[in-house]
């Protein structure tokens, strides 16, 4: 059957059920109280709609069809038939009493729906082939119980007319009814056992689904016997089954269609807790009223009882809830415990806030739980790396707020929504600290990036300046010098000797100016750096006032790295000459994995300290700007060694 056809069919059945129930209520109106027919009508309609909802979503789901079919059966053979019988008896319609008999016997068949529901829920399949015999037993029981009850003279007491017109002496009704009922009960018990067996072996979604049905079943188990016991003693209890029965189809529907939206453990715990609370408070009230009423008037006793109950409400509620949580929501209890312990270790300094993600994963038993920390417009993981945190099928994102601000996003299983919220609440301190750390780390990274950028820009600027000096100012001075020489030549001895001397002097000054500019440019950024670190350093060594030994200069590196190494060497050398009164400096290179190591050792006075003077600080900055580091080893009297480690990948 196609999806659309299935939907049309269940919609039609729902319409029929509603029509039948409306008719049933209308028929009874005027001849009998309509309270019970209305409640049973509601019950049948709820079951039909619940089944239809399942079919609407999953057209092939047997449970949906089961609910719909038995809702229709109940509407027709139990409710409509009973109403027809009641009204027909008054109006003298044909077959009225027979309809009543059918209605009062229908439970034998209707109960099979419950039997099958327990056996087939939640996936519409038997646990194993052996369980197929359970409904067969019911069927055999029904074959005996239906005639055993329909033909039974005792049924007459329940009929409006008081006499069962179908009563037959020829058929052994009592033995048939007794054996049939036993078989039916056995089948029902077996179906309940099937649910329990299924529950024991279940996990995850199936377990939650079974819990829904078991909760509704447990309520029925409580309500139905109480209703039966008090059926005649306290007539209002007759509404009980009608109110309780729709719970089962509702639970089935929620379990199959919307299971992930609700936390069944929470529902169970709340139900049990408030049930117990009601019981305890009622008993307290009754006891107080009885005890106090022995001494004073009953209004005072009632007021005292109310007061005691009001005062006891919160403490009792809290205790009961705790006890129930421990029993029914062990997962939640243990999860909170795990997180609370983690926060405690964090307080003591035994745990790092960065491990909060692991703690939450352990707490909710979900290795794929992911935390995202908001900083600016982006999201970062717990180690400060940017990440995209999107919902994926079966997982959603919950945001944890501090004040007005979202600090953390948690991506978790849909089913864990409630649990994650509570666990995150317990671990809020850890989340806030982790969030601040991520923020701090990101800021530091930004700082490093901007430092590198500044150094790179400054280096490029030096390079540009040096080139401008060479190609601009120096060239111009050379051509002016040439002009002067030409003028001198043109004068050709005709000018006074003084003019000749002046021109010679001017040209000599130009030469000095060019030398100065050359030195300046070399200091800004030696052109020899274009030819590699080796040539630049050898040139630097040649210019140095003290002997400088350059050892093991490695091959070419990226331009920025060579500039960094060069300026570190330069500054280190200046330092050795100026401050350490060294006689000799050694520049040594080495390559360790992906780092270029540059060591500058002198034999000077030592005692260098980065906190005094900006030279060494500048070196440290430069090394860090390239993601490297610089260590200063300088005891008094033993010389100084600067060691720069620069990453070169």
């Amino acid at each position: 059957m196609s999806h659309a056809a299935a939907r049309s069919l269940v919609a039609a059945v729902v319409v029929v059920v509603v029509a039948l129930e409306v008719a049933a209520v209308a028929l009874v109106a005027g001849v009998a109280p309509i309270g019970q027919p209305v409640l049973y009508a509601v019950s049948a309609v709820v079951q039909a709609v619940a089944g239809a909802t399942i079919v609407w979503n999953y057209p092939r789901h047997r449970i949906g069809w089961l609910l719909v079919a038995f809702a229709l059966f109940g509407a027709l053979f139990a409710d409509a038939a009973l109403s027809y019988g009641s009204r027909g008896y008054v109006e003298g319609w044909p077959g009225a009493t027979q309809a009543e008999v059918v209605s009062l016997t229908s439970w034998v068949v209707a109960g099979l729906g419950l039997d099958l529901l327990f056996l087939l829920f939640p996936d519409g399949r038997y646990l194993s082939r052996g369980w197929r015999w359970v409904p067969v037993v019911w069927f055999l029981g029904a074959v005996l119980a239906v005639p055993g009850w329909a033909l039974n003279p005792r049924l007459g007491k329940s009929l409006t007319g008081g006499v069962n017109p179908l009563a037959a002496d020829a058929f052994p009704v009592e033995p048939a009814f007794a054996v049939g009922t036993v078989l039916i009960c056995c089948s029902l018990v077996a179906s309940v056992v099937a649910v329990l067996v299924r529950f024991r072996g279940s996990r995850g979604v199936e377990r939650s689904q079974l819990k829904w049905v078991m909760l509704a079943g447990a309520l029925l188990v409580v309500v139905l016997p109480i209703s039966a016991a008090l059926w005649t003693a306290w007539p209002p209890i007759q509404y009980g089954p009608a109110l309780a029965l729709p719970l089962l189809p509702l639970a089935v529907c929620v379990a199959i269609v919307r299971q992930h939206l609700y936390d069944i453990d929470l529902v169970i715990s709340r139900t049990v807790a408030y049930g117990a609370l009601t019981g305890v408070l009622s008993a307290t009230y009754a006891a107080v009223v009885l005890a106090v009423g022995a001494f004073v008037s009953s209004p005072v006793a009632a007021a005292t009882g109310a007061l005691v109950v009001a005062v006891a409400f919160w403490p009792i509620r809290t205790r009961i809830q705790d006890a129930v949580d421990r029993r029914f929501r062990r997962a939640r209890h243990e999860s909170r415990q795990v997180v609370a312990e983690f926060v405690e270790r964090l307080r003591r300094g035994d745990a790092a806030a960065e491990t909060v993600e692991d703690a939450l994963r352990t707490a909710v038993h979900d290795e794929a739980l992911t935390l995202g920390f908001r900083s600016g417009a982006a999201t970062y993981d717990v180690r400060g790396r940017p990440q995209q945190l999107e919902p994926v099928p079966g997982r959603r994102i919950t945001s944890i707020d501090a004040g007005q601000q979202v600090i953390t996003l948690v991506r978790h299983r849909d089913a864990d929504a409630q649990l994650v919220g509570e666990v995150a609440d317990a671990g809020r301190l850890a989340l806030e600290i982790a969030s601040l750390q991520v923020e701090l780390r990101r800021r530091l990274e930004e700082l490093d990036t901007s430092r590198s950028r500044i150094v790179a820009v400054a280096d490029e600027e030096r390079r540009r300046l040096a080139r401008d000096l060479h190609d601009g100012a120096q060239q111009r001075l050379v051509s002016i010098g040439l002009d002067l020489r030409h003028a001198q030549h043109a004068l050709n001895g005709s000018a006074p000797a003084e003019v000749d001397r002046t021109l010679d002097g001017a040209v000599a000054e130009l030469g000095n100016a060019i030398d100065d500019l050359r030195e300046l440019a070399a200091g800004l950024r030696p052109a020899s750096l274009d030819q590699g670190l080796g040539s630049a350093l050898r040139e630097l060594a040649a210019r140095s006032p003290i002997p400088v030994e350059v050892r093991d200069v490695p091959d070419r590196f990226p331009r920025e790295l060579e500039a960094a190494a060069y300026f570190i060497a330069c500054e280190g050398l200046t330092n050795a000459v100026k401050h350490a009164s060294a006689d000799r400096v050694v520049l040594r290179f080495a390559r360790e994995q992906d780092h270029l190591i540059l060591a500058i050792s002198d034999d000077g006075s030592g005692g260098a300290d980065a906190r005094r003077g900006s030279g060494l600080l500048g070196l440290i900055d430069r090394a860090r700007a390239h993601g490297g580091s610089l260590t200063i080893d300088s005891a008094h009297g033993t010389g100084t060694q600067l060691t720069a480690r620069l990453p070169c990948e």
Partner: protein
Amino acid sequence: MRVIVVEDQALLRDGLVRLFTDKNHDVVGSLGDTNGLVELVTATEPDLVVLDLRMPPTFTDEGATAARTLKADRPQLGVLLLSQHVDRSSVVDLVAKPGFGYLLKDRVFEVDEFIDAAQRVAGGGSALDPKVVSALIAAHDEGPLARLSARERDVLSLMAEGLTNNGIASRLFLSARTVEAHVANLMTKLDITDSDERHRRVLAVLSYLRATH
């Protein structure tokens, strides 16, 4: 002497052209970059090409590249490189060739010395700027050059500049005999067999520098 001047800065190019013209040399062509240089050399058969080291398009070592091309086809052609600063590695393979010179640009202020150097290069000799020489020597402070005394290094530098023993003697205010003794000593220290021919000595030294680079 027939000269071609290749220099990208117009003012400087004109100044160089005038300098040679003033000294009665024949400037047979001038260019702003190395495009068409080989054709111009073929057409005019000059004795000397004066080249700026850094020229368009990249302003790195176009002059050295052009010098290499020219010397490959015409080993006899004199090539004189000019630059603003010492660029050792661009020229290290060229310095040992006969008829090659490398001077800083401001050497042109000493017009007579400059013209001397240019003529020496045009005649198959060498002319290296003292700063170039000291950069070359500084690059080898780990090798056998470390065994030379300060005075011997001075002598070697001047030899490398292309000066004769007499020239070295007058530059250093020493007697010619003393200079000869220094030359003999440093040749021994450098394990270079001496010969009478002056350029051979220089070239030997420069070859040595290049070989140990």
